């Protein structure tokens, strides 16, 4: 199992969710987060100089999937979250040791 942790633009979230739904990926956990990347945020230019907005609101999606579905989910998120401009975010993939359903106690997905 893999944990796919994607940090994306909030305004792309609807597209990502819909694209995942089309491939029958429903389970996810969403967080509103703040962050920055290599560009350290956005610099706003004014006549009197510039102003740095270093932390930008993002949506963090966490999805746990079977090993074989991981690449597909990564592709979907990559395409649906992309605008091509700086600030589209990142996807992290982590191994998952166990997954337990609280209601029934059953293991794995």
């Amino acid at each position: 199992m893999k944990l796919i942790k994607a940090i994306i633009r909030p305004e792309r979230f609807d597209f990502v969710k819909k694209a995942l739904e089309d491939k029958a990926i429903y389970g996810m956990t969403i967080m509103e987060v703040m962050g920055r990347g290599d560009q350290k945020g956005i610099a706003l230019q004014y006549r009197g100089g510039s102003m740095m907005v270093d932390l930008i609101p993002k949506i963090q999606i966490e999805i746990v999937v079977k090993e074989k579905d991981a690449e597909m989910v990564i592709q979907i998120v990559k395409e649906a979250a992309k605008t091509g401009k700086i600030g589209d975010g990142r996807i992290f993939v982590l191994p998952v040791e166990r997954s337990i359903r609280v209601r029934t106690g059953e293991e794995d997905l």
Partner: protein
Amino acid sequence: MVLDTGTTAWLLASTALVMLMTPGVGFFYGGLVRRKNFISMVALSFIAFALVSIQWVIVGYSLAFGQDIGGFIGNLEFVGLSGVGMDAGDAAYPPILFMVFQLVFAAITMAIVTSGLAERVKLSSFILFALLWTTLVYDPLAHWAWGGGWAASIGSLDFAGGTVVHISSGFAALAVALIIGKRSGFGQYSMEPHNIPMTLLGAALLWFGWFGFNAGSALAADGLAANAFVVTNISASAGALAWLAASWVRGKPSSLGMVSGAVAGLVGITPAAGYVGPMAAIAIGAVAGLICYAAMLFRLKKGLDESLDAWAVHGMGGLWGALATGIFASAAINGYSGLLEGNVDQFIANAIGAISAMVYAFVVTLVLAFIIDRTLGLRVSEEEEYVGLDISQHGERV
């Protein structure tokens, strides 16, 4: 008549009540935008209030209430409030009190227009736009209806500002929204209100302040003021229930719909408050709720980003209110008869007053916004809009 302390006291209180409506508009709008523009939206209302306050005492009051020039505008006799003093003479209240009572109306009108600029206006351009708009659009319209202009002389009735405040701000918001353009991403992804309780609180301030708005417009502490107070509350309630029911039929009974309906009812009764009775107020409010709801659906269907529905609620609600005054005016209340009492002339006079104000406000705003947009630019840059106006225009975060 010499100065009447009851009337003077009531007008002082009414002025303070109406003042509270302007931040009320800010909080109403602020809850409807995304969180990154919350401060900006509230600040625009405060800025509108402060700007119009200064403009009004320097020149605005004189343009609206100075000696009539051709039925269109007042002269400059009261510039800098010269001759606007404490001495009531043979009036029931001092001129300086009437001046400030009218000031708070001019200020809230400007705040309502910010609906069409939400989440994308450049603050410096807004300041210039607001000063020019209140001078070129509000002041003449106030003069037409209340300052001895042509609308009053043809007998068009506007008790508390349905035409002057609501038609003008609603259609101005539509015009300015057409010039500034849609918010980036409008129609592609959802832009949900970020704080509905804040909007409900804003609506509460508006409903409360509206008692000063309408009952204060009687310019006396008397039975007519009490009637205006009562019909105002009735119409707000009928509007709230009508919109609530309409949204229930189409899905869930939304609280935002309910308070939008209340504001629609308040707008609808504004021109009529001194001319109609309680039962007419139920009809005016309920129809206002339904008309404004339909106008909002039409606006969404057309993909127009008049973002916070000043056009649907204030513009269309004001238009209905002006026509409704011509329909429901009752001689038993204030000596004027409407269509239902067989007076077609009243209906026609009100329709002319309303439609002229609508066309004037829309066209002048369109030209004014166009000129500012092509010179200074009305809109922030793409990056500034993306990070939000709170940070980019004010350097602050919620």
